[in-house]
């Protein structure tokens, strides 16, 4: 069974990455969706890694994906923790309101 060439997967990864980037801008309000978009971005990056690993027959791509996943998990954990603390303090997670750090 011929596996589709790496190109398809790369295109997929690219499209998914653009979708998640769009998600970042479009979503003005919700922090959670923000975090999800970041997860999506990481996923699309993994897709690329595996596509290349498969194409080059090399292990590093896959191992790297492993590490990216661990980092992603850690990042989500802390992101959500921050989110919880944020909600407890500000009782809103509306991104637009959080601009105290402006110039």
């Amino acid at each position, binding site marked *: 069974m011929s596996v589709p060439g790496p190109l398809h997967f790369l295109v997929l990864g690219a499209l998914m990455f653009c979708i998640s980037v769009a998600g970042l801008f479009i979503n003005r309000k919700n922090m959670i969706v923000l975090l999800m978009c970041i997860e999506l971005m990481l996923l699309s990056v993994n897709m690329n890694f595996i596509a290349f690993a498969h194409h080059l027959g090399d292990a590093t791509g896959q191992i790297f994906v492993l590490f990216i996943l661990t980092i992603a998990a850690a990042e989500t954990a802390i992101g959500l923790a921050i989110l919880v603390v944020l909600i407890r303090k500000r009782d809103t997670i509306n*991104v637009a309101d959080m601009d105290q*750090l402006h*110039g």
Partner: protein
Amino acid sequence: MNPALMACLAAVLLPLLGALIAGLGGVGRSTAHRVTIACTGISTLLSLLLYKRIILEQGASLNEVAYTWLGGEWLTLEIGFLVDPLSVTMMVVVSLVSWLIHIYTIGYMRDDPGYQRFFSYISLFTFAMLMLVTANNFLQLFFGWEAVGLVSYLLIGFWFKRESAIAANLKAFLVNRVGDFGFIIGIAAVLAFFGSLDYDTVFQRSDELRGAVLVILGQDISMATLICGCLFVGAMGKSAQVPLHVWLPDSMEGPTPISALIHAATMVTAGIFMVARMSPLYELSEVVLNLILIIGAVTALSMGILGIVQHDIKRVIAYSTLSQLGYMTAALGASAYAAAMFHLVTHAFFKALLFLGAGSVIIALHHKQDLRNMGGLYRYMPLTWIAMLAGSLSLIGFPGTAGFYSKEAIIEAMHYSRLPGAGFAAFALTLGVFFTGLYTFRLLFLAFHGRERTRVDEREQLRESPRVVTIPLLVLMVPSLVIGLPLVELMLYGGYFRESITVLPQHAVLATMRADFHGVWSYAAHALLTWPFWLAMAGVAVAAYCYLLRPQLPGRIATAAGPWYRLLLCKYGFDAFYLGPLAGGVRRVAHRLWQDVDSTLIDRWMVNGTAHSMYLLSAVVRRLQTGRLYHYAFMMILGLLLLGLLQG
């Protein structure tokens, strides 16, 4: 150090010593004047000794270097002394007149608080003048030149409480500085061409100047004309020739002794001396000689005319000095350097005599100087009257007097000179003699004869001045009258100046005049038939008629003359022009420069401007930090995109 150099050094430095002791020593009044009179006296004696050695015994002239001022093989500048016939004559004149004036001042400044200060200034002046006269290079000449300017500044402004005096001394210094501006460029030109400032090297190589040319603004100007022209500008500043003469009448603000010493006998003649000293250079430039001739003639005539309308006794004599200086400059122009020097010597004596006489009149009238309320003083001050009469006769050139011989020689020299301006100069100078006679005897009649216009209560106290004043007058009377007789033969035609003055054959005016000179008395007798004598007598007659027989006639002439009279009153508008457009204009431009360019353009716009623009820039940048997360994300992605495009 041979004895001659020692004598010269002592003669020059003693007055300085006297000045320092009197000025800074904090000594009493009598010690001050005794010390300074002793010093100038010794200096006069030494000058006379040197005079005897160099002129009478035809000794060799002395040229020694005292010390190197600035070393380095590029250019060595030294301070040195040159004592030759020209400078020794000047030394005698300067020290003798200064010594007499020191004595005279005891009487004149008796009740003045700044007594010691005044004595220290006049002996400092003597030192500066002797340094100028005995210099053997341009540097020391310039040092003496400026030092003399400084002391005249100090002396004119001696009574510093008087607003007019301190205005006059600033004016005098600045006008002198305008002259020095030209002078220093002349010296720079000399150095540029000859590579040294020493008289010897410059004069020996002076004929190299013939062809030399300097290109300025496209035209090539002959080097000789440039050097002599610039040096003459300096002489004009110092000897108060027409464009730069405005400071001399105002310098009468100073006490009368200094008017006599500085503004009659010595300082103003520095310019004449300098041109005579630089005769080897001046002979090479016909253009400058002609210029000098014309300026001298114009000054002589125009200032003579102004002398008639003055009411202040000292200003009349001041204008007469200006006019006589014009005569000397004209003589220089005609290459009759010896005649100019001769007139310089005689003028120093009789002009000093006139000033001191005027001074004694001023003492008697308790510092009143206006001719309109004098008159009939001869009854009260016979000695002063005789002295003034002698001085006046010598001034108008009455045959036999010293003034006659020197002025007659100059007027004759005009006829023989072949320069283009000679015709005009001869006419101007002969006409000048009429006005000289007019204003001299106008002064004499107004002051000493005619109706007594002095205030009644003062009349009783009118007495002859103290002996310390009258003795110098009498002493000065002798040379004013008789100095001409021995000197005329020797100075004009007898090779008196030997090598210190060089005259080119085609300019040798005095040589041609020697032919028809047959002894002193025949010359005087012959003069009775010539124009100048009759013009002088006509001047005296007109003065007698106007101011003795019909005193109110001058008033009527003045009103009739109307605009002409006003022109004379405002001294041809020189003062108005200098103070108004020139000085005022410079101040206005400077103010504009300071306000508009310096503080506004550079300071407010460029300096504070940049500071303010930094502030504006930072205000804009501040708005970029919105604090919203997605803006930052957006910018990151945008950056990535741009990077990608740039790469792609």
